[in-house]
């Protein structure tokens, strides 16, 4: 299936959830509403024509100044169809949570923990949502755009 055909299929299956689709530089992207992410991912994995059996990457982007502020980005790959797709779910700052897709691909386990650690987005239904890359006493979520690069942590102390 070509990238456009994949996006068409997703749009047809979830007409109210898909906000926008586009293809740029050969990458197929679909922006969806976060409430339906679990259903969409399950459909992408189980549909025999799509068969996305790899969750390659799960990350988030902070668009400070835009609303909704965050976008959780899922990169999926289908081995049998040799096809990639990117799903983006928009998450507002106020209610910073989205459903966890651990039940669909277990690979999401650690990736979601990393996004929680670095961005502060809560994944509802995750079995073990703890910090993974940073230590437990760390304050703040460093990859947010309003976290200054040179911020010091209490356990480490000031620069001088």
């Amino acid at each position, binding site marked *: 299936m070509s990238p456009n055909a994949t996006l068409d299929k997703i749009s047809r299956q979830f007409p109210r959830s898909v906000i926008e689709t586009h293809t*740029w*530089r050969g*990458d197929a*992207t679909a922006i969806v509403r976060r409430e339906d992410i679990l259903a969409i991912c399950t459909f992408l994995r189980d549909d025999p024509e799509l068969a996305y*059996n*790899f*969750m*390659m*990457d799960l*990350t988030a*982007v902070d*668009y400070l100044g835009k609303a909704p502020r965050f976008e959780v*980005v899922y*990169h999926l790959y289908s*081995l049998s169809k*040799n096809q*990639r797709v*990117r799903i983006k779910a928009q998450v507002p700052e106020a209610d910073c949570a989205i459903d966890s897709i651990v039940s669909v*691909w*277990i*690979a999401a*386990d*650690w*990736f979601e923990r990393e996004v929680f650690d*670095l961005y502060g987005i809560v994944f509802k239904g995750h079995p073990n949502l703890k*910090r*993974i*890359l*940073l*230590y437990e006493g760390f304050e703040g979520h*460093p*990859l947010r*755009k309003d*976290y200054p*690069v040179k911020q010091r942590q209490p356990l480490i102390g000031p620069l001088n």
Partner: protein
Amino acid sequence: MTDSAKTLHTEHMVINMGPSHPVTHGTVKFTVTLDGETVHDLKVDIGYLHRGFEKMCENGTWEQVMPYTDRLNYVSPLINNVGYALAVEKLFGVETPARCQYIRVIACEMARICDHFTNIAAGAMEVGAMTVFLYFVEARDLLWDLMEELCGARVTANYVRIGGLKNDLPEGFGAKTAKAFETCRELWTDVDKLLTKNRIFIDRMRDVGTMPAEEAMAYGFTGPCLRASGVPYDVRKAHPYLVYDQLDFEIPVGETGDNFDRYLVRMEEIQQSMRIVEQALAQLPAGPINLDVPGLRWQSKDDTYNRIEALIFHFKTITEGIQPPAGEIYAAVEGANGELGFYLVSDGSGKPVKCRVRPPSFPMTAAMPRMMRGRLIADIVPTFDMINMIGGECDR
């Protein structure tokens, strides 16, 4: 006997294979709950080598990210360089000249060979065959000498540039490579004789850390670990980049997904990579190695000092950074550990909005508890080795 086993009070022992332990390459903490020698549960803690790669990238320009990529998978740094450069070039929508692509392939494959040498050497040493470690380290050193001639550094290469390379191949590189490969092949045969039919090595590695294909895919395994499980997925064949579609090589695929298959896959990949390098050197075309696009790649010093347009572009690209069009891409290369993906988001300015690395060894480390439950504590060592978790890329 069974009665006393039921009424005997036993406790599980919690042992800490802490961040500094002879076997944890790349600082990882395992909290192992033991029932005698059997692993009851294993908890993995990573993040000891987290240096804030993404935050640093967002704080500089697109070109300033290049040295940071060296320090991701520090055992095969050139592959990270190439991956990032290809990703940014995809953002721009450009392709580098043919000679540049061939040299990038050579650099990638040599880095891959070094990574596999290191991994098998460490794996054998952890199991007790300490001599193998030194044989492969000698082989790796010969290749590092070549890389030093190529880019000036053995590990932190920083050789690839967005839109080209730092410099061309040095004089006599082909002949030196052929000589180095001869010794490498000899050492490879030595190690093959020492390990592949060795009863003790097979006992330690066979049926240990087995990961069936379906579960491996669900966990997001890629690279040699996935191929050892029987899934023939290699980014070089599935989505050919650079000139891999013009080179003749095979990808070894295992059967059971245990540690021994991972070892065999890597050994064979070393041979295939040597083949690729030899073919690339033979087919190397003449021509420029840098794209002649002033806003993307620096012009030669000759031009910069003598022509005002080149000077202006030089000034702008250094102070403001190169400015790719707004948008986002995901570009993947076949790293030594698996699919090394770069997800770049640009807003049209010289600073990245997001510079994400998809770490190949992250999912494999996440699967350690699954592979180790019910095994003996002595199995943690070879399994963790064969996964090839590199702290720099797993923690970033």
